């Protein structure tokens, strides 16, 4: 399990070397950690002869800073909904030429003109999922239905929180009955106080992102705040684990593929996006990373195993109680300030 982490770090070290390709036959891909099938990448290179320079990020915020600072280093980026909105707003993205992306026909049509990209020009949905609680049924007695377990003294030193600003504060806001996209500093302040109390009470064991899934498999903690795909990955390795989207509602998100305006290899980027939207490739990715695919044809290929899985394929009722993150623009400054107060409390 640790190997993944070590490999990632080695990759990061390599990343520091100037690796952005100028030559033809290269595509620079910037994606989330553990978020693609290596076989799919190999197949892409095999079929097209294009070398993939693959680079990782951990949170949307980290990604955004890097793309802002060196937009020409990346040809395809995989931001989430609210970040795509932000990037369109900042004029960082280039419209995709859909004549080069015929596989778009397989993508769920309901997702093609989303609120974060109203004209649908800039992004192609890659995966979607929810935020919820992954818990160990041998350590948590009753089925979890509410965010309140994350703030329950009973689970002293037994909760992994997510080291991600919007997700952590969003959950606290939702538990308090507010919107995850609030722009009311008083509501946000209440969420901050709740998270500081949770930390001071000794409930939080650690704030982390990519380490959580493997640690939950090993039984390091009873409860963890995770994304649905990480949950499914962990459940697959440890059947004692279960995933739930609490009744108060949660965050539902879509990660899209976008092309930065300054991309050097736009044609290759479109080829890459088209390839990733091909049903068999979408299936490969889905089987590897366990998030929900927007690819209708891929879902048909996967059959009942996918359709009956509530983590990967939540019911309409679960989807209805979730909300998208919206771009909160300059208000993020207040989120950032409060987040540091929590982390250093």
């Amino acid at each position, binding site marked *: 399990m*640790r190997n993944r982490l070590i490999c990632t770090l080695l990759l990061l070290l390599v990343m520091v070397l100037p690796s952005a390709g100028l030559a033809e036959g290269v595509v620079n891909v910037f994606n989330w950690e553990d978020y693609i099938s290596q076989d799919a990448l190999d197949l892409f290179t095999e079929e097209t002869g294009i070398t993939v320079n693959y680079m990782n990020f951990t949170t949307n*915020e980290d990604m*955004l800073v890097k793309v802002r600072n060196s937009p020409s280093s990346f040809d395809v980026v995989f931001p989430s909904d609210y970040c795509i909105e932000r990037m369109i707003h900042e004029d960082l993205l280039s419209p995709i030429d859909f004549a080069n992306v015929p596989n778009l026909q397989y993508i769920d049509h309901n997702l093609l003109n989303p609120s974060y990209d109203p004209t649908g020009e800039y992004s192609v949905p890659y995966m979607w999922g929810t935020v919820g609680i992954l818990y160990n049924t041998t350590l948590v007695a009753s089925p979890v239905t509410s965010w309140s377990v994350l703030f329950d003294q009973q689970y002293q030193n037994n909760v992994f929180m997510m080291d991600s600003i919007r997700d952590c504060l969003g959950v606290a806001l939702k538990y308090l009955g507010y919107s995850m996209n609030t722009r009311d*500093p008083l509501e946000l302040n209440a969420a901050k106080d709740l998270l500081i109390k949770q930390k001071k009470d000794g409930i939080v064991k*650690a*704030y*982390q992102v990519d380490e959580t899934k493997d640690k939950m498999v090993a*039984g390091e903690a009873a409860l963890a705040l995770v994304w649905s795909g990480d949950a499914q990955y962990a459940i697959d390795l440890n059947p004692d684990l279960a995933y739930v989207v609490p009744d108060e509602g949660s965050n539902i998100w879509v990660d899209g593929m976008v092309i930065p305006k300054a991309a050097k290899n736009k044609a290759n980027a479109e080829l890459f996006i088209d390839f990733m939207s091909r049903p068999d490739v979408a299936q490969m990715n889905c089987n590897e990373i366990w998030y929900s695919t927007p690819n209708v044809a891929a879902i048909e290929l996967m059959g009942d195993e996918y359709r009956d899985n509530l983590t990967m394929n939540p019911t309409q009722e679960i989807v209805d109680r979730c909300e998208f993150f919206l771009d909160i623009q300059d208000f993020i400054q207040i989120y950032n300030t409060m987040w*540091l107060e929590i982390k*250093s409390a």
Partner: protein
Amino acid sequence: MNQSLSLPSWMLWLLGLFLLGFVLLAVYSVKRTNGIRRSFFASPYTLWMVLFTIVPCVLIAYYALTDANGAFTLDNFRNFWDSNYSVNQLYTQMGPEYEVLIQRGTVNIGILVYSLWMALLCTIICLVLGYPAAYFMADRNIKIGSILVVLFIIPMWMNFLLRTIAWMTLLEDQGLINTLLKSLGFHSVQLMYNDRAVLLGMVYNFLPFMVFPIYTSLTKMDSKLLEAAQDLGANHLHTFWRVTAPLSLPGVISGITMVFMPSVTTFFIPRILGGGNTMMFGDLIENRFLTEGNWNLGSALSLIMMVLILISLSVLRKADPEGEGGGMI
């Protein structure tokens, strides 16, 4: 937040002029002495230092003193002192009902004080552990001394990130140590996700930097001095206290410097071994740069860090004016 981080063009011109001046100076010095002066051979390093030490420092100072639009401002330092400085202004603009939220933020200062405290603890522990180890290794009557030196160096061949992650496997609740404890019938203990684990990681990583300067100054010491002291009637304790300890002082000072400096700016260790429950100043700077994308505030914090380090360096230089501690700083 919509900031452009590209440098103004005059900075690039300045940089070009600087390099040109440097080349001209080199050529002039060759001409004037009708041949190549010895100092000329230092020029590749000088160029390296200018490009990768001096220029970055100038850039840090530039960012620290400007805002997102490149205009001069001291707000970054106000934000350091009061981490709520910017958001307080927002609250004021938003209306009177938000005035209850206005208060001084102590995030930056708090993290700085915590980092200094952790660095102090780390330095003390390293000194207490490192001095006897160095003393032992430097003893010529002990055959395995040189083997110990090699054993100290070998782990340093590995990257410190990997060594730190390896500690995780040992310290976790389901890790090696706890599995062993449980199989022996003891209760498991919480070793990770707290300050102690962070301190352990720091001591582990920085201990060699304490041991080697002391070791160097001890081996450099003339053993005739010890014989002379004993001839004059001093016992072992007395010899150590009056001869060995003062002569190894430069090594100790050098060791303290080399442990304390990197300790204050430690990052990554709190995130991995401390589970992100605490932040050190290095993590804070990283967060300002990479998560918030606020290069200006991040640079201001770095600048403050550099000034603090320079101050402590000059204090330590006073105690070791010849820089004898292996000359490693």
